[in-house]
């Protein structure tokens, strides 16, 4: 299912973009967390109590999963303020990469070269998916390490459990994986491998706002389930925070179904170059 030549070539081709995205997300995490000690200094956040107690603001803040208690905890701060950027950035990277890795061969007409080599269509998809998954894993390992370091550097007197951090990290990873599966699947539906960059931005931002909307407006909270963001459990300070089977099943199930459909569709696709 995996052709080593293709895998190696893809790894080489997307190395620079991986370095770029990893550097960006690391910078975001470190800079974001650098605010934490500043806000804690002289109890700046606590002076905003009145602001947070305002019923209107309270609603908005809940929508974003924030409250004073949460924001004053270092992991709470990380998971509300930073994780939003990590989730969005990571989802973009994931969907851009997966949406490109297969479709680009058609767009640049190199599919004619590749598919006249002795490889099966399954091997092409398999090798490219393997390269995608490798970079997604590496990217998330970078987030795990940098995230952990940023917590350790800036935590001050605040306390957190590493397990909680790791579980939340795992949900973010699954979220990115799911957007990646959506990306590669959508890229196949589009003729001649046209880029899906704009579509990806729409899907991710759209998904994000559906999730936010469902949290702000209780009457439409059910529509949140249309968005993968809904399935990330960000309540890191709640007691008993743990991995939930149905959330993991949702991410993995959706991803596996889309990956399998990608194999099936690509096998039957006419390559018009």
């Amino acid at each position: 299912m995996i052709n080593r030549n293709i895998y190696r070539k893809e790894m080489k081709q997307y190395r620079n973009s991986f370095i770029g995205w990893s550097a960006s997300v690391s910078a975001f995490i470190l800079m974001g967390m650098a605010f934490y000690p500043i806000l804690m200094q002289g109890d700046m956040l606590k002076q905003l109590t009145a602001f947070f107690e305002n019923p209107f603001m309270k609603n908005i803040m809940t929508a974003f999963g924030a409250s004073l208690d949460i924001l004053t905890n270092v992991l709470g701060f990380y998971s509300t303020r930073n994780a939003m950027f990590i989730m969005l950035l990571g989802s973009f990277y994931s969907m851009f990469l997966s949406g490109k890795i297969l479709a680009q061969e058609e767009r640049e007409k190199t599919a004619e070269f590749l598919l006249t080599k002795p490889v099966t269509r399954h091997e092409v998809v398999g090798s490219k998916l393997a390269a995608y998954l490798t970079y997604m894993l590496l990217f998330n390992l970078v987030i795990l390490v940098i995230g952990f370091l940023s917590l350790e550097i800036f935590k001050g007197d605040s306390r957190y459990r590493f397990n909680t951090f790791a579980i939340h990290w795992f949900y973010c990873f699954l979220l990115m994986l799911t957007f990646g599966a959506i990306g590669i699947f959508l890229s196949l539906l589009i003729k001649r491998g046209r880029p899906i960059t704009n579509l990806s931005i729409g899907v991710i931002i759209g998904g994000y706002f559906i999730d936010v909307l469902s949290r702000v407006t209780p009457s439409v909270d059910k529509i949140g389930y249309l968005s993968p963001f809904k399935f990330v459990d960000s309540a890191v300070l709640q007691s008993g925070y743990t991995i939930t089977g149905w959330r993991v099943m949702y991410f993995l199930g959706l991803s596996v179904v889309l990956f399998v459909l990608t194999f099936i569709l690509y096998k039957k696709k006419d390559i018009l170059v």
Partner: protein
Amino acid sequence: MMSKMYVIETRGLTKYYGNARGIVDLDLKIEPGEIFGFIGPNGAGKSTTIRTLLGLILPSSGSGKIFGLDIVKDTKEIKKQIGFMPSEVHYYEKMDVHELLRYSGSFYGTDCEARIVELADMFDLDLGRKIIDLSRGNQKKVAILQSLIHQPPLLILDEPTNGLDPLMQARFFEVLKEEKSKGTTIFFSSHTLSEVQKMCRRVGIIKEGKIVAVEDIENLRKKQLRKIQVEFSRPAKLNEIDCAGIINPYADGNSIFFLFSGTMNDFLQALDGKDIQDLIIEEPTLEEIFMHYYSEENEPNTLSRKQ
């Protein structure tokens, strides 16, 4: 039953893109070791045929075999034995030539390095250049090398000379002759018959998705088709010679020009008593024979139907 093993054999191979015609009911048989010319204008279905054979697109109906293997099910096995040269070259722009050729060679499990160097030298190709910086002619050379380095027993060439300068064309033909002497089968598509004429033993002519004729080049020449010019001492009228076998006549000044597939005796009798200044009878070029196949509605006595 199949008594003979063909390198390529298709039966009723058909491809529609939605409602648009690609190829219809294509029957082709390519014999081992031959150079087969596949001739037709743009849009006739040459590329569709080649893409279907290579598994880039799936047939709507019919079947095809290459080396006895099914073009849909066994496409990977088949491609181990094929060198393919596309008509338009699209390679990874960021790679340099050597990198691309090594990547290409890496799929065949044989060491292609010596052959890469030898052929690059022969075609005067700089291996260190980036693909994106190459001229069209040089990209075409990369495509030549790419199709040859793993020494496949079947070459499928889609308009291979398109974009090559005459010197390189000559070298390319030399290489093909060498390949043929090694027993390589060559399937060669083109819209210029003259280049096929030099190389091929047989040609297949495709028109609007259908094969209109498959002929030996020698037979084509030997057929009694003649190119005739009759010059009168006065302005000529188009229909003034009444004889079976006159094809596509046209009058110009004192002369009539036409292709002739009838018997010479009848023709000479038909000329009897006419005011003839000059008579030129020559062998038509393949291009002219080809045009004859292509004239919209062929007369009943065409070459293909006479057989």
